[in-house]
């Protein structure tokens, strides 16, 4: 345990330090790129019939008359104090808007990752199982089909199949009308349980199945293929031959010896995939009317709402860095070779 902690703590500290640097770089890039867009934030935050003098006054108030570097410093100092500015479109604090929508997206992305992981591992095992048989081309083709369809197409397909044709699952929002949403943590699945409402928990879960399945299924084939090739590599290792010589069954060798080692690169991949998956929520949230960060971002882009775009961009970055840190720590936990001697 002590060995484990001495391995993980420096790793986490190192990752946090690196993350801070990355965040600074990303925030500066984001700030500069958005300032290059032909959008006048001052003019857009004023009513249509504002005079040029009023817009100029607003520009000064927003610090937009300052050099770009100084503008960035002003913005950064406000962000460090938790102030992401006010939305041009909603005319209210951006931090509040992000805080209200982030839990929904995290919940959706985590469930989607869980589905992607389950499908990916099951599919990878099956692909490995059928290697060298007549079913191998079929398995390859299936994974390529899954890989080539983007998540929004899955989303539309699931709505038509499970929502409209079979009428099995809801596909709008997070909860059916008739339920009063408990607001405790913002994470609906947790809140419904904390409120002692298992019926509402099931209803919320039903609402999450299709969007998370659409996201998860689109990301599962990469996991399948990486797991399959990892298993093929692992099966070349000496200890697999020795296990066979010891008379262990193929099933036991796969589950108890090969899979554990083959999963390590898969886990690493899932960490990277999570970033893409989190980004994939943008379209899925719009299609499923899911009130998360993605939906907010799409609105912000449509309305050129720069303060929201900046804040959501940074939030995405923080979440991805956090998940990658967690995955790195998990990697150390699962792989004793990486621990400090």
């Amino acid at each position, binding site marked *: 345990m002590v060995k484990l902690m001495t391995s993980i703590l420096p790793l986490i500290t190192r990752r946090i330090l690196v993350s801070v640097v990355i965040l600074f770089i990303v925030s500066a890039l984001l700030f500069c790129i958005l300032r290059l867009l032909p959008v006048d934030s001052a003019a857009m935050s004023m009513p*249509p019939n504002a005079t040029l003098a009023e817009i100029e006054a607003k520009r000064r108030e927003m610090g937009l008359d300052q050099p770009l570097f100084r503008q960035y410093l002003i913005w950064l100092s406000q962000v460090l104090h938790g102030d992401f500015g006010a939305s041009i479109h909603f005319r209210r604090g951006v931090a509040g808007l992000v805080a209200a929508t982030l839990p929904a997206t995290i919940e959706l992305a985590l469930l989607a990752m869980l589905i992607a992981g389950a499908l990916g591992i099951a599919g990878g095992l099956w692909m490995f199982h059928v290697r060298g048989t007549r079913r191998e081309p079929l398995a390859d083709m299936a994974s390529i089909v899954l890989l080539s369809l983007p998540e929004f197409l899955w989303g539309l397909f699931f709505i038509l199949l499970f929502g409209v044709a079979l009428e099995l699952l809801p596909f709008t929002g997070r909860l*059916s*009308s008739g339920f*009063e*949403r408990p607001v405790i943590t913002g994470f609906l699945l947790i809140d419904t349980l904390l409120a002692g409402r298992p*019926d509402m928990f099931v209803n919320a879960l039903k609402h999450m199945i299709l969007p998370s399945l659409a996201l998860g299924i689109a990301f599962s084939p990469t996991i399948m293929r990486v797991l399959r090739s990892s298993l093929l590599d692992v099966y070349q290792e000496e200890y697999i031959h020795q296990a066979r010589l010891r008379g262990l069954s193929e099933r036991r060798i796969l589950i108890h010896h090969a899979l554990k080692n083959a999963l390590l690169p898969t886990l690493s991949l899932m960490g990277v995939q999570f970033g893409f998956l989190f980004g994939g929520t943008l379209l899925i949230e719009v299609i499923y009317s899911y009130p998360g960060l993605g939906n907010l971002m799409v609105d912000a882009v449509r309305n*050129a709402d720069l303060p929201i775009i900046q804040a959501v961009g940074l939030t995405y970055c923080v979440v991805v860095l956090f998940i990658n840190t967690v995955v790195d720590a998990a990697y150390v936990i699962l792989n004793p070779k990486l621990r400090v001697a």
Partner: protein
Amino acid sequence: MIELDRRTALQLLGLSVAGSTLVGDAASAQAKDSVTIGWPSDVLSWDPNQRFAPDAQSILKLVFDQPLDQNEKLELIPKLVTKWDLAPDGMSMAIELRSDVTFHNGDKMTAEDFKYTFLDRIKKGEKLDTANSWKKVKAIEITSPTKALMQFDSPAPTAPQWLAFLGSYIVPKDYLEKTGVDGFRDKPVGSGPYKLVDYQLNSRIVLERNEAYWGSKPKVKRVTFDIIKDPSARVAAVQSGQVDLTINVPVREVERLKKEPNLAAEINPITRVILLQVRNDLGFADPNVRLAAHHAIDKAALSKAFYGGAAAPLSVVATPGTPGYLSDYKFEYSVDKAKAALAKSGFSPEKPAQIKLAATNGHFPSDYDIARAIQQMWKKVGIEAELETIEYAKYFELNRGAKLPEATLYSWDNATGDPEIFAGYLLNPKMPFSAWKGMDVGAKVLELFNVADYKKRIEGYRALNKTAVEAGATIPLLQSVVTVVRKKNLTYTKYANGWILGNTMGWS
């Protein structure tokens, strides 16, 4: 131990599913007392004076009351204000308020709230869109708890119309001062027929009937708005029964959904115009080119191609049934006339006039496709238009900086139907909506802004509508439509301006 846990887990799951089924049953049992509406956009702010958004009016009108209202034919009718009297010079307006209105928190509505809404908040410098619509108000004199006199610094002939228009909702002074704007937006209090009980940004709005409402009680107890931005998802939601009514589905879907046994689908014309906002300079400085551009557009073909023929072609910037509309005037579609007009200025298909055309993509149905079709129609007569996409949110910024091109495809909503808010706003060179800055037409518009006599004003606008089109100052195209798909046994009142109000709904 493991088995026990498993059993417990299974029992819990069973209970949950049973619970969910029970709730489902309860929900269907109370279905006749509730309505779920699939709505394309969220409200921008629960401070109803803060942001103008035409699509949000059908939601805001359920929670807040306006001083005046409109009936389904758009005639002004009393609401919180029972009597109003605009002075002949348009410089003041006396109003009389109801005495039996309470806000949702129990506060009584008085003339103090009226003054606070239309003067005090604006003078305090709060960031409100109503600060623009009511900027002419210089004082509101309260003569009794139910009587007040609005005084303007210049004639305000459309003040009564504005009392029933965007953002003009009376808010409770004491409550708003106590909570502040942020607190009010989190827990809004109005005097409308419904109270807000749950709101989740970009997702859901749940309203419950205000049992203490001063007016007639709505039939439906609970109205839920599911915010569904994607038109295909709205179609799927109404088809699968997840919502009872939805709007703005693609026109082609209306024909298909009409055939569903439990659904009714309609295309309703509304007081929204689709037009080309034109400049009076650059490649459009020449009136021949502007008139040719208008003659060359086959509006009926556009309507047929993009709106199933349901959008009426317009010759003036007003919709049928509104006071400024000219039913006996038609601007002719004629390729020959277009070519002849261009020839007068030395242009032809071989030597085309060069202009730019801007359009939004996705702001209203088929906007970009309409622009492309117009581009092709123009090409045939000798106008070569370079098409560019602009964001709707940037329209005012571009117009203010004179950066709009010669023509911009635009959609303009006017729930009042009043001609000032059609041609008056769209052609007033001093307003941010108008791309036209020419004073030949502009002077006539400015003059009409000071005419308080209703009859004279309407006559003036009817004449202006024709003059403006014949001068090539505007190119009206189509009357916009709203598509409505609903369960067959759900009834609602059809308003000429497209409002879909939950308090008029009921199950048959």
